[in-house]
């Protein structure tokens, strides 16, 4: 009970901290919009653009935006630091300098270099160029991407959830020092830990080796699950829908099962016993591609695609409110959108768990295949 109260307190403090920052971060931005409705997202193309924009990582933490009476577009949120490795070395500034511009019109000059942000990617303008010129597919012709180590929204999400997980589970760990059975919120966490250990790690890796990998599997499971769930809140994180993050997780799994593979594993991969010698090189190529490329690729793409698809579906269903306003009326469109998005949200909560489960499960399965001891030739 005490722990739960403390967690609630902790969360309240986090939220309050967010909102106090929000108060200072209120800023008006007239440059963003030139159309006559003040930048409202109303039409189908605007909705599509908005959804695609949301799916990408963003350099500032914006909670919502609105249009004031004067027709100015206002954004509520706070800026995050931008850290770039450009052709001139390290460059840092706050993301507020872009004024929420996302199509390369606002140019930030730092260290004698000009930076623009196009579709959530920061580009460095070529020396002689003054403005961005782009071809018909909206690719900038006189600017190139820079290495972007910014504390983006996803990084904030990772940090936040990382600290939350550390906080929760070190609490649970500490409780075992004084008592046998945890109390409060830790009582919820314990069965989850047991679930991952007994249902995912043990059966897939095997009684003998599972201990070495349980820590990784547990971390990945809770990391993905909590981030999936946070992605469903109006905070608008889309961390597990970032291909870089899922790639990172998949490559961790790849590294672990590649380096913990025993002799049998490599033997079966490179020189498959029990198969005509002529076929062995072909099989080796197939096996190597499967283990080194297809397995991690399917892991990373599955998580990325599922979460992205979930976000797209939910946001599209919410957008019914605006796009079907004319044909169904305000009440009809709103009601339909609320009902549909509510049920899809329920499914997405299931998917959030399922994807974490599947990622952990398949990681455990691949690791288990790598450390399994074959007694019989097959």
């Amino acid at each position, binding site marked *: 009970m005490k722990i739960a109260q403390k967690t609630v307190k902790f969360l309240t403090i986090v939220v309050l901290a967010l909102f106090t920052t929000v108060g200072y971060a209120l800023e008006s931005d007239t440059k963003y919009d030139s159309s006559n409705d003040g930048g409202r997202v109303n039409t189908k193309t605007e909705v599509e653009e908005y959804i695609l924009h949301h799916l990408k990582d963003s350099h500032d933490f914006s909670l919502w935006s609105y249009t004031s009476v004067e027709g100015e577009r206002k954004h509520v949120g706070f800026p995050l630091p931008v850290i770039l490795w450009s052709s001139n070395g390290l460059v840092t500034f706050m993301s507020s300098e872009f004024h929420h511009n996302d199509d390369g019109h606002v140019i930030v000059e730092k260290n004698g270099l000009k930076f623009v942000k196009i579709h959530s990617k920061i580009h460095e303008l070529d020396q002689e160029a003054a403005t961005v010129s782009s071809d018909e597919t909206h690719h900038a012709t006189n600017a190139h991407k820079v290495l972007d180590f910014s504390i983006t929204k996803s990084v904030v999400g990772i940090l936040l959830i990382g600290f939350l997980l550390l906080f929760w589970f070190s609490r649970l760990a500490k409780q075992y020092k004084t008592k046998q059975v945890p109390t409060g919120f830790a009582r919820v966490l314990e069965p989850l830990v047991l679930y991952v250990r007994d249902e995912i790690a043990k059966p897939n890796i095997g009684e003998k080796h599972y201990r070495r990998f349980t820590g990784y599997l547990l971390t990945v499971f809770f990391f993905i699950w909590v981030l999936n769930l946070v992605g469903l809140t109006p905070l608008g994180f889309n961390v597990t829908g970032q291909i870089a993050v899922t790639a990172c997780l998949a490559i961790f799994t790849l590294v672990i099962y590649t380096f913990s593979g025993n002799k049998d594993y490599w033997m079966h991969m490179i020189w498959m016993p029990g198969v005509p010698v002529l076929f062995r090189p072909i099989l080796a190529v197939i096996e190597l591609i499967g283990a080194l490329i297809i397995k991690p*690729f*399917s892991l990373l*793409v599955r998580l990325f*695609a599922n979460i992205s698809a979930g976000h797209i579906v939910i946001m599209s269903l919410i957008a019914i409110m605006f796009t079907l306003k004319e044909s169904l009326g305000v009440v009809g469109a709103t009601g339909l959108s609320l009902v549909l998005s509510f049920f899809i949200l329920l499914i997405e909560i299931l998917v959030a768990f399922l994807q974490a489960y*599947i990622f952990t499960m*398949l990681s455990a399965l691949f690791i288990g295949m790598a450390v399994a001891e074959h007694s019989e030739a097959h």
Partner: protein
Amino acid sequence: MVTYNLIGAGLIVIGAGIGLGQIGGKAMEGIARQPEAAGKIQTAMIIIAALLEGLAFGALFLGK
């Protein structure tokens, strides 16, 4: 160009849908036949479905 991509995506989805249907249906049959093995069948079903899903997504993204 875009249309071909969409046709390809549709074909992938049809294939994946048939596959998922097979997996789910057979798993249901298996569970109905042997309810005590439901847990094992479910786990295997989810793993196979996940592998199929990975394949389908891979194809979708390769085409895009």
